[in-house]
């Protein structure tokens, strides 16, 4: 039982990661691929934040009367990673817009040439 209490958080996060990952590799539409990529990454961020949590701790901002703080390091890492994620999303979506203009479609199975498949 304690086993489940210890890990339930990580397991659900793994499920979320895999849902996102599945969308990335199975989706036919390029926009949906990007959405999947975002879900995948956001779930990985959740794993990091879970690492940083200390039971009974509080947000790592000094305040009176608080003795235990959660670990600030994963927070810093994930701040950076979120920014990286949005940067990738922006470039990916810009590519999708251009692909739509060049090919007239953003569905993977509608590209005529097999070489163009993504």
């Amino acid at each position, binding site marked *: 039982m304690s086993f489940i209490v210890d890990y339930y958080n990580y397991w659900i996060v793994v499920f*979320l990661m895999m849902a996102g990952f599945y969308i990335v590799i199975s989706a036919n539409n390029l926009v949906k691929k990007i959405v999947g990529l975002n879900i995948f990454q956001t779930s990985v961020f959740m794993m990091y934040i879970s690492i940083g949590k200390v039971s009974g701790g509080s947000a790592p901002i000094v305040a009176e009367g608080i003795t235990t703080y959660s670990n600030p390091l994963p*927070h810093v890492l994930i701040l950076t990673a979120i*920014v990286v994620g949005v940067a990738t999303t922006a470039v990916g979506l810009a590519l*999708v817009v251009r692909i739509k203009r060049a090919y007239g479609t953003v569905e993977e199975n509608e590209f005529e040439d097999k070489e163009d498949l993504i």
Partner: protein
Amino acid sequence: MAEFIDLVLLGMLAITALRVIFLKDLFAVVMLFGIYSFLSALIFVNLDAVDVAFTEASVGAGISTVLMLGTLALTGRKEKTSNHPALLPLLVVGVTGAALIYGSLDMPPFGDPNNPAHQHVAPRYIEDSPQEIGLPNMVTSVLASYRAFDTLGETAVVFAAAIGVLSLLGLPKRDRQAIESGLKSHLVLRVVAKLIIPLTILFALYVQFHGDYGPGGGFQAGVIAAAAIILYALVLGLPMATHVVQPALLKTLAALGVLIYAGTGVANFFLGGNFLDYNMLASDPVAGQHIGIILIELGVGITVFAAMLSIFYAFAGQAERTNIQ
């Protein structure tokens, strides 16, 4: 209590993610992604990562969703059914998931204060950073001083994204006469938006300069300030917005922000310190740290504001162009 809320939120996330897999209406997919982002930000708050929640809410639910909607407006709303079998993806996902579950079996228990992650490097940040840096917000201390090089990289990433989007889509030209377009028929919305926008900019300034004491900082402030202009552009139309904040100016601003950040680091060379060692910026190390952090947060804020807004302009400009044709 925190664990219970965590579990409920994770459950909601799981359901949302499952729904996204099966929905074919991309518009709904994007809306659910917004919810997903909101929910994950809630989880971050619940797990004490307030700064991260701040960023995730403004970036994931705000900027990403707006950009996705902009893309959908240009590419169409419906996903066509795919005809290739979904077996291989399922297999790949199954194997990866199994590997992760296998790996989780030796993970340190969730939330245990004796975990290695809380024992080795982090205690120094928690115990000494208020004295060494002089700021109550440890996340800001680590972000802007101990690991400032990561943040410089992050600024460079934003800048790279702006360059990428500009090279792909190009910036819209500034219109000579600013015609109001946008949501013409929504009078109430226009009035309220005009009220909200100055408040938002005020809030952005607060976040920028209060980030040392509470959640927030240059990145979040930049995003919120950009969001204010984005709101303006959505309600009153892109031509009006480009009149207020010119696209050409944004390019300069984005470059300037990176230079402010890196320049602060280089300045220390000549004062006898290492790159990004702010101790030398003032006679007192703590004061020096403070000056350095304010400067680099300013650089981050400017770059993020300019980059996010120019990315939005690029997408909106595309939509505007196809609308005319």
